């Protein structure tokens, strides 16, 4: 079976600054890939390219064997590093929006029973991210962490096939953070999600992911810092006794997957 998402010799350049060079990557359906690397390495840039927001300056990206158009759709959900919630919608409206788009192609608004059902679904998700009480606030009235959680709820309520997360939990306190870890793991198990997550927390990278990628520069010229871009320097598949996947086993999954990172195999790879 050809892999789900594949990047072939992908480069990302801004003007004459080379950010990513020669990235080759095959990601299987259902993988949970954590990406770590120094600040400024190009992690967010990589996510943008996979999302289809930016086109790579060279190379090819294929999804399910088809070349990826540089555009976004509801197959790929995203939580950006910077706040990407809609400032003119309340928390509840922000969360409802995805549901409304799917069900009301023309008005993008729901009424009556359909709305009540969507509101219930959105509220469940808001409770899950700890914003249950804040449905009527506008983003400007919320703290940084709350906005980030809203962005997450917004993406999750659409149950995308691929979920791209850019430091989603950076601004959260440890309590809510482990709740969110549980939530994302459950969803991953329940919906055969493919997750690509950028994080600065190595513990998080290893405990959540089943594959950890490290982005960094392979070469560095101190006199021309922009000459060389980063690439994948470590690609660590984590082999664990995974429980069988499926929505039915959700409660079981919750306890089995939590906080395990035993039996890891590490291979140093050369990406060139």
């Amino acid at each position, binding site marked *: 079976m050809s892999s789900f998402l594949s990047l072939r010799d992908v480069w990302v350049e801004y003007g004459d600054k080379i950010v990513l060079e020669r990235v080759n990557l095959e990601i299987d359906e259902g993988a949970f890939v954590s990406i770590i690397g120094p600040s400024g390495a190009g992690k967010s840039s990589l996510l943008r390219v996979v999302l289809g927001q930016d086109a790579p300056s060279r190379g090819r990206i294929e999804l399910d064997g088809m070349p990826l158009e540089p*555009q976004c759709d*509801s197959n790929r959900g995203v939580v*950006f590093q910077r706040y990407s919630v809609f400032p003119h919608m309340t928390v509840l409206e922000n969360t409802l929006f995805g549901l409304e788009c799917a069900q009301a*192609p023309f008005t*993008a608004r729901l009424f009556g029973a359909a709305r009540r059902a969507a509101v219930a679904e959105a509220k469940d998700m808001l409770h899950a991210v700890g914003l249950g009480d804040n449905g009527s606030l506008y983003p400007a009235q919320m703290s940084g962490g709350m906005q980030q959680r809203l962005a997450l709820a917004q*993406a999750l309520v659409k149950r995308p096939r691929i979920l791209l997360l850019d430091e989603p939990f950076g601004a959260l306190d440890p309590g809510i953070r482990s709740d969110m870890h549980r939530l994302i793991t459950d969803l991953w198990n329940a919906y055969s999600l493919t997750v690509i997550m950028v994080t600065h927390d190595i513990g998080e990278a290893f405990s959540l992911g089943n594959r950890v990628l490290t982005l960094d520069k392979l070469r560095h010229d101190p006199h021309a810092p922009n000459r060389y871009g980063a690439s994948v320097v470590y690609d660590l598949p984590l082999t664990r006794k995974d429980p069988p996947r499926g929505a039915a086993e959700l409660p079981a999954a919750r306890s089995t997957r939590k906080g395990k990172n035993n039996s890891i195999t590490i291979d140093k790879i050369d990406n060139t």
Partner: protein
Amino acid sequence: MQDRGRSVVRWVDRRIGRTNGLLMGAVPILLLVLLYLFFAAERHAINPADKILPLPGAMVDAMRALVLERDPLSGRYLFWADTLASLQRLGLGLAISTASALLVGLVLGLLPPVRATFGMLVTGIAVIPPIALLPILFIAFGLGETAKVALIVIGIAPFMIRDIAAHTAELPREQIVKAQTLGASTWQLMLRVVLPQAMPRLFQAVRLALGPAWVFLISAEAIAADIGLGYRIFLVRRYLAMDVILPYVAWIAILAALTDILLAWSSRRLFGWAHRSAA
């Protein structure tokens, strides 16, 4: 180094309350009125029949007939009939301009191919002074109400369209992408993400366009009309009746300022999210 002991709050940091703000705002206007009275009195000392800077008494006399008495010919209270006619034209012109600014502006701002095709045209129309093309406008729209409304629309709509388009094009790309990942079609994106966020800007654009709109209204009424505030002003200009012109201009300023305040207030009411949170 800064002296920490001073208790004077910097001007940047001062917050002005509502009542204080009104009072402070009234001061320079009052000063201007006083200045006018001074100059008017001075001119009248030299020539008691001076018409250029009439004294308040003369203005009251001149206006009384227009405001309180029926015009024997038409049976109308001229001042109020003028006001009504002008406001109707202005309202219609503003409404059409606003609607087209929204429609065209959003599409231009959001869809690069459309912007490439029509952006230059809109710029071109925006910079052509419509009063230079009056003869062609007469052919296209005749000389009636349509022509007056059309002059307002041609005068302000391109400017508003460009403003809304520029603002729309500045929306963070992240928001567009986010909406697309939530399954929004271009239409839904327009309707739920771009349009609502353009609304406060639209209100701002209407406020900025109010001045030019009045200019074009008055120009239109100066060209061909038999009623309206601009008509009256240009008619009585024939005999330098500043005692009518000045109250009329003041009245226009009051109407325009009220519209402005109303728009600012509605924008704050309707789009609270877009204005500084009330701390």
